[in-house]
């Protein structure tokens, strides 16, 4: 029987699951949409991962979670490690590209940049204001043009003369795009323009003031878009590396971290019949009115968060009253 490690990355748009062996080799992986329901997504992804491995051969020794729903899912799975996505991505990427200096990451609603020196994170930034220039922005613009976002990249490559678009804000970008289409810009030029806008927006926003040094690795959902890759290469004048598993780096990183923090309590993959539930309420015990979220596993309170005061700690009883 071999030991294996599970990593789950639950983003706002997609959920990624991965199982690695002792040598960090991926033995199972899965990518699905979160669809606003992280609990269901995780149940589904674990179910799927189970089918991919031989449970007689592998035993899951530890679990790690990352992504915006890391805490919730961490509580749900009883994870050994709950890590923010910046650290997770850095660790994951370093395991594949030990020499990496710069990581570009553009996901569904987040984008980040991570600067690495000598194998450790020395600087990073995340998008702060809105989702413009991220994956969800690209797919909504694709829809507008009557295309599927997966075709986007290839079409962009055919453009000779990319349009200049203002893409910092979704609203402006949309009106600008419509305007450019009205005055006769070609579709491929607009698409290439969008890719370019995503890149310059990213570099001016998240990448502002960062020492971008090669080798550069690009990941996250948008890294599947060859148009954006090309735009990055044009602007930075550097080769952009994209791993075939670039979308799984967060999950991989947190799986590795869980391996390091190994606590060796066997983990049961059979969770599909357990009923998980979250209940949120405002505390009302003092003017702070903390918004408290309680998390239940088959009616048992397993975790809660959001409380800031001494007297607001939720118990089984507060909940029944709430």
């Amino acid at each position, binding site marked *: 029987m071999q030991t294996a490690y599970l990593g789950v990355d639950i983003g706002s748009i997609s959920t990624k699951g991965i199982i690695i062996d002792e040598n960090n080799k991926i033995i199972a992986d899965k990518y699905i949409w979160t669809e606003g329901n992280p609990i269901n997504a995780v149940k589904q992804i674990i179910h799927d991962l189970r089918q991919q491995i031989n449970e007689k051969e592998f035993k899951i020794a530890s679990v790690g979670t990352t992504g915006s729903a890391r805490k919730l899912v961490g509580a749900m799975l009883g994870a050994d490690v709950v890590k923010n996505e910046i650290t997770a991505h850095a660790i994951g990427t370093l395991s594949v590209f030990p020499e990496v200096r710069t990581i570009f990451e553009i996901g569904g609603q987040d984008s980040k940049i991570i600067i690495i020196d000598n194998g450790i994170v020395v600087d990073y930034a995340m998008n702060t204001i809105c989702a413009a220039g991220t994956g969800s922005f690209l797919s909504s613009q694709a829809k507008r043009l009557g295309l599927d976002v997966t075709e986007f990249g290839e079409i962009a490559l055919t453009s000779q003369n990319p349009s*200049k678009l*203002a893409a*910092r*804000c979704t609203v*402006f970008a949309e*009106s*600008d795009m419509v*305007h450019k289409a009205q005055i006769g810009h070609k579709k491929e030029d607009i698409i290439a323009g969008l890719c370019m806008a995503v890149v310059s927006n990213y570099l*001016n*926003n998240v990448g*502002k*003031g960062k020492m971008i040094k090669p080798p550069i690795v690009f990941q996250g959902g948008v890294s599947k878009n060859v148009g954006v890759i090309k735009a990055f290469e044009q602007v930075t004048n550097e080769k952009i590396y994209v791993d075939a598993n670039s979308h799984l780096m967060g999950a991989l990183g947190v799986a590795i971290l869980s391996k390091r923090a190994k606590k060796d309590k066997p983990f049961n993959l059979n969770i599909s019949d357990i009923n998980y539930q979250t209940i949120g309420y405002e505390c009302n015990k003092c003017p702070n009115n903390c918004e408290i979220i309680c998390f239940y596993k088959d009616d048992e309170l397993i975790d809660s968060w959001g409380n800031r005061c001494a007297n607001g700690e939720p118990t089984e009883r507060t909940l029944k009253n709430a």
Partner: protein
Amino acid sequence: MVIGLPKAMLYYRYKVLWETFFKELGCEIITSADTNRKILEDGIKYSIDESCLPSKIFMGHVYSLIGKCDYILIPQVVSYGYDNDVCVKFNAFYDIANNTFENINILDYSINVMEGEKEQKGFIKMGKRLGKSYFHSLIAYKKAKKAQALSDQLKSQLQADVLESNQMKLLIVSHPYITYDRLIGYPITEYIKKLGGLPIYADLINKKESLQRSKEISDSLYWIYNKELIGAIKLLEDKIDGIILLTAFPCGPDSLVNELIIRKSKKLPTINIIVDELQGEAGLQTRIESFMDIIQERLNQQERLNQKEINKKRIV
């Protein structure tokens, strides 16, 4: 000796002063180009994201001058006297440029009257740095000062003349570095002209008079550049048909001052236009057009009422 003048920010206030002064000292002058996409993009690249649009444009202009002159002129302004301060952005341009660009050679002077740093003193110091004598600099400064005053007066007079025109007159209440910038204000005033309106510029009004009248709108305001602008509203109230408050995102002083103007000056139709680096032109034009339509409607109504009044009198 070549002095570079970035065509942004205080350039629009001190153009004649600067040019005369440096010419009198025997320097050559090079001015950056009108703001264009490239300048804006460079400015964005070399600025902190949250900086205001005019300061980003300023950085673009500074960047475009690097390597083309011996010195780039960047003044530091804090106060013109008691209760006459400026936005703290003007306190910092020198240090921002110095810390952002390597190999930059800045010629600076400071106006901080409350701390005893007067304009004249600053100019003489500059002269000294350029190897000129005290008197040479002093004479050059006096000449430059006179030339600037003359130019301001002339512009003010020219505007006073057109105030009598019966075209629709719209007061542009906006900092000159926004109003006259090729990329921000210029397309807007041009569009107003195209639609048959006449832009009246608040910054051309005699500054002393407008400073005084500004108290009527705001008594605790201490930003002198804003005071000069809002005083013009009071001075011209009866001669104009509408007010356009034109500002750039996210201007600190304007965010408060314009709010107060809108709340207090209800006599005239007023529109608040906030420009940022992504603005599409189409949306702006629609807003200006509809604003002017509303004013035209008001004017027509007024005309009809006046006509009735006259007819009534005739009947009587």
